[in-house]
């Protein structure tokens, strides 16, 4: 244990924490530009802590929308986190006392890093390193961005958006080892791409998730063994 703390999951979690955390600069700068004060920026990053929703909230305000409209957009965009909560609960089997803390750091990055691992220990490490790592850096850089304002410029100029694309692809890649997951992945890409122009931000990923669930239920029934005994063998050890 003492020698093996710095595992692949830890490295993945740290990489994604740095790439995502730096985006906090852009959030802080845009939030101040949208009319928030420093404390309001800090509350959003520390408590709301789900980047998409935060950007949606200030985006609505910057566009002249009301705080109620900002609230609605942010909340809609956050619904996917409840799907993540279910996934993480099933994968990590957390004790009840840890759940409130885990819920707070249940976001795209921590969920993706955790589910990208194969062993339980690595899944746990990936979740905590990415979740807490993103939280710390995201909040630190939100303050930096809010203080420096728009002088910091666009994180796209540093290639951070490219880093995010690579980070998520790197997590998906090891799962594409047989025909079925490749099929599911392409299906999800298609549903997401078709849904983006016609739905509110945050909805496409929910539609892709719903399509995957329906597909999984149909294929499960088809492949189900006839006997009770056979069915029990399907349970993973």
């Amino acid at each position: 244990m003492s020698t093996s703390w710095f595992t692949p999951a830890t490295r993945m979690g740290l990489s994604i924490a740095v790439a995502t955390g730096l985006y906090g600069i852009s959030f802080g700068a845009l939030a101040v530009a949208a009319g928030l004060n420093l404390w309001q920026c800090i509350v959003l990053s520390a408590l709301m802590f789900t980047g998409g929703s935060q950007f949606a909230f200030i985006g609505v305000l910057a566009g002249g929308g009301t705080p109620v409209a900002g609230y609605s957009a942010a909340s809609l965009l956050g619904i996917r986190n409840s799907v993540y909560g279910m996934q993480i609960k099933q994968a990590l089997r957390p004790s009840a006392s840890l759940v409130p803390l885990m819920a707070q750091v249940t976001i795209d990055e921590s969920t993706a890093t955790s589910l990208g691992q194969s062993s339980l220990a690595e899944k746990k490490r990936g979740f905590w390193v990415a979740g807490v790592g993103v939280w710390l850096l995201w909040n630190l850089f939100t303050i930096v961005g809010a203080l420096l304002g728009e002088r910091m410029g666009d994180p796209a100029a540093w290639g951070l958006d490219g880093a995010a694309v690579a980070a998520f692809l790197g997590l998906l890649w090891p799962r594409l080892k047989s025909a079925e997951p490749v099929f599911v992945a392409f299906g999800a890409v298609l549903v997401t791409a078709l849904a983006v122009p016609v739905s509110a931000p945050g909805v496409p990923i929910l539609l892709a998730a719903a399509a995957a669930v329906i597909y999984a239920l149909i294929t499960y029934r088809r492949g189900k063994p006839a006997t009770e005994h056979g069915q029990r063998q399907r349970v993973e050890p």
Partner: protein
Amino acid sequence: MSELSWWILAASVTAFAVKLSGYFVPRKVLDSPVMSHVAATLTVALLASLVTMNAFTSGTQLVIDARIGALAAAAIALMFRAPYLVVVIVGALAAVGLRMSGLAT
């Protein structure tokens, strides 16, 4: 406290409640064989959807920009079994390179 501050607080509490709600699905439901199968499929779909959102969308628009270069570069790095951190850096460098050379926005 201003009205805006109250809405910020309300949105933050809602976000936490939504995150927490997933953890209240009973373990018995999550552990059934059919749910294991659903979870495995859902994981792939969520990751693929996140890749798509990050690579091709801007707000509610589909766009092709330097990020597609980052996606391709990362895929090539993964084919050559590059370590994860290298894949992430390759993605960033590809996006920066394409923008600096003026080949993409």
